């Protein structure tokens, strides 16, 4: 099934510059259009059906494309001013992009000569930061130790859209089987195409003598021990220079996953036997929820998003095992 949903003149919370003094630094505006279009497919089938064994299955998948257009003057909007550093300024509404896209610097990696993080400027050139001053210098791959040419990394000019926060596809596959007195059902679910700002990961690589993720062992230590090429040199209290408080693609990850959401195995006691003790039906079962997930996402769970495609210390889903009895008198 094809769907297309057009929204005109959305009501958007536009961030206003705090120096304007607007209460809450938010203005509700009617601005821009948004279209959601795509296809949905679903299939249901009975694979096997005989005396002892029955297998019903079904699957669905949706493809979705989200696009914003006709913003006033084509100007970008930063939605929903938030005190939360994970959101503020990192989310953008821009013509031609999906709504609430991630916005920041593109990360190149670590300078193998000195351990400094290297970023792309808008013109494609590379710049590295000097930890002691916070200033940026041109990075030359053929001469990485050179810190002589001053440059800059500007949040106004050098940021770009780093990915959309809404999934491009998602769906599920469910199954129900019964064999003699046993029954089994399970559901797989998948989603992908979206990017996540793993703010939790950034904060757990803090430079303030707090506990860090094991990822920090891959840091640059010296030119002969340059680490994983992603994690820069340590610098006490230097979160601004090491991890950058502006979002960078270093902390943007794919949100793709497949998960086994639930599985249940049951056993129905023989009806005749049960009725002999005045019980109409008796079933015992074991069930599990959130059994496992296959994902390359480095955080706990790519669905643990707190808001706007940002994972900021959300609460993980719990894995639940249950054992039950259905008794009908």
């Amino acid at each position, binding site marked *: 099934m094809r769907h297309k949903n057009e929204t005109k003149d959305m009501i958007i919370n536009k961030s206003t510059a705090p120096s*304007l003094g607007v209460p809450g630094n938010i203005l509700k505006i009617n601005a821009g259009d948004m279209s959601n279009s795509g296809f949905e497919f679903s299939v249901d089938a009975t694979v096997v059906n005989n005396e002892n064994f029955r297998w019903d299955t079904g699957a669905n998948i949706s493809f979705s494309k989200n696009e914003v257009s006709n913003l006033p003057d084509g100007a970008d909007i930063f939605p929903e001013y938030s005190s939360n550093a994970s959101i503020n300024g990192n989310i953008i509404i821009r013509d031609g992009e999906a709504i609430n896209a991630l916005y920041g610097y593109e990360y190149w990696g670590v300078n193998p000569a000195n351990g400094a993080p290297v970023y792309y400027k808008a013109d494609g050139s590379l710049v590295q930061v000097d930890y002691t001053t916070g200033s940026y210098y041109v990075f030359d791959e053929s001469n990485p130790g050179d810190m002589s040419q001053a440059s800059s990394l500007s949040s106004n000019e050098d940021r770009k859209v780093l990915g959309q926060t809404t999934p491009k596809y998602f769906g599920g596959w469910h199954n129900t089987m019964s064999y003699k007195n046993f029954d089994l059902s399970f559901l797989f679910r998948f989603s992908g195409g979206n990017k996540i700002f793993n703010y939790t990961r950034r904060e757990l690589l803090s430079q303030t003598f707090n506990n860090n993720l094991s990822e920090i062992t891959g840091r640059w230590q010296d030119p002969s021990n340059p680490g994983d090429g992603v994690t820069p040199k340590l610098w006490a209290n230097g979160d601004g220079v090491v991890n950058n408080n502006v979002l960078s693609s270093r902390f943007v990850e794919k949100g793709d996953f497949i998960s086994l959401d639930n599985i249940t195995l049951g056993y129905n006691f023989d009806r005749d036997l049960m009725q002999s003790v005045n019980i109409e039906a008796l079933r015992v079962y074991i069930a599990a929820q959130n059994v496992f997930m296959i994902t390359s996402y480095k955080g706990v769970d790519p669905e643990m998003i707190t808001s706007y495609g940002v994972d900021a210390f959300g609460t993980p889903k719990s894995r639940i095992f249950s054992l039950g009895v259905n008794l009908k008198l």
Partner: protein
Amino acid sequence: MKKIYRNIIAVVFAVAAIGCSDENLLDKNPYNSVPETAAFDSPENIALSVNGMYEAAAIGSYAGSGGRGYLWGAAYIEQNDCRGEDVVNTASFYRITYQTDYDATTANNMYYWHDGYNLINKANIVIEGVTQAMADGIISETEGKDIIGQARFLRGITHFELNVQMARPYNHTPDASHLGIILRDYAINDDASLEQGELDGARATVDQVYKHVLDDLKYAEDNASNGSVVYASSNAATAFKTRVYQHMGKWDEIINLVGDIEGKYTLTPSPSGVFDDNHGNSESIFSINQTAQANAGVNGALGSQYGRRLLVAISPIIWNNAGWLADDKRRAYGSDTDLVREVDGSLYTNKYRDHSTYSDLTSIIRHAEVKLNIAEAYAREDNLTEALSRLNEVRDRALADPTTQSYQLSDFPSKKELLEAIILERRIEFLMEGKRWGDIHRLQGDEFVPVSGIPAKVANGVPAPNLYDAASGTMPPLGESAVPYADYRFIWPIPMSETSVNPNAEQNPGY
């Protein structure tokens, strides 16, 4: 083979596009909300609007929840203290400021900016609303100008204070042409003014900021009335001008103001007089009002942070300073009216005494500061006699035996030593009143009493009791290293919440 049944059901259908009309559906003046003009349509409503402006100065709004005393209610004192070396941060509340660990997203400096400009806009709305109310005859010219004077005072001192945090000092360039802060001098309350405000979002030069501040203070001086200590007054504007001129190094201008302000107030006989009686003392010139009703819930209030929770201690650096006499009354602790408080051997201020409902007023400027501003101006202009008399007025009331301990002119070989005594006196007299950062900021590279960058500090955490050794001259171990003037961290960044949506706002280099 068993029989296999297969049923495949696939449904494909399309849904037509759904659209709304092209009209803007958002009604910006809904009938169930009060239009802004109503705020100024009667003298009673104007009084409420003015109170709203003072409330914004006292409490502010923090992270979308309740206020924390940004900018003037408490944060002004706490942040300015914690940027300096005369206090020690004991917990995490002010750690980022204390350890110069701030960046463009850290909350302390961010809310200074947010709540500062929120107050400025409220002041601008009052100015425009009252101007219209005067034209409409709702209030008299005199009353209207009094209120506008108060609003301009708050706007002026807030622009000034933001500039002290976010910009290099006045004398950083010979003509103060370096980056200041953004000046906002019209109300932003509708689409047109918002658009204009976005266009006017560039930072002014420091020179422009100071001119603007002085212009506001001049208007307040000429038009505000004198009365309660918790409302901005003509005298408060004159007093504040001495602070502004001090930051500019315009000593002759301060001396010109002596006749206008010095006789208007008197120092309390006791050094704790201002804190014994916040409202009724003879010394306070302008304080931010705090009441049990309005301030009790403010997380950040002085009575909470400096009083009940002991989040900031007096630093052994100033306590051990040999220039602060061991028997000075300002060192006393043990009684409820003493200025210091001892808890488990470490020392804290006792200037803020209501630890349950936080009703201590926030002293913004008091006469002792005016006296020492005048003293410094005279000393700079080589009039050491006049300078010494003001210095002694402030200091003598705290001495155990003024007849033998009072400073004599012969104690000072040159004006440099006298200036050093004045600066030390400021550190002692205004300890934990938020004055230290202003001095550090303006005295960089000073000819006589230079401060070099942000001085090294005692390590973050509750200072051990054995570090305190009054007037011993012992420098305690310093756990927080100094930050040179050239370092980008000397000044605060412009918050990223501003630079990300205001392309005209240039960030301070390094952030």
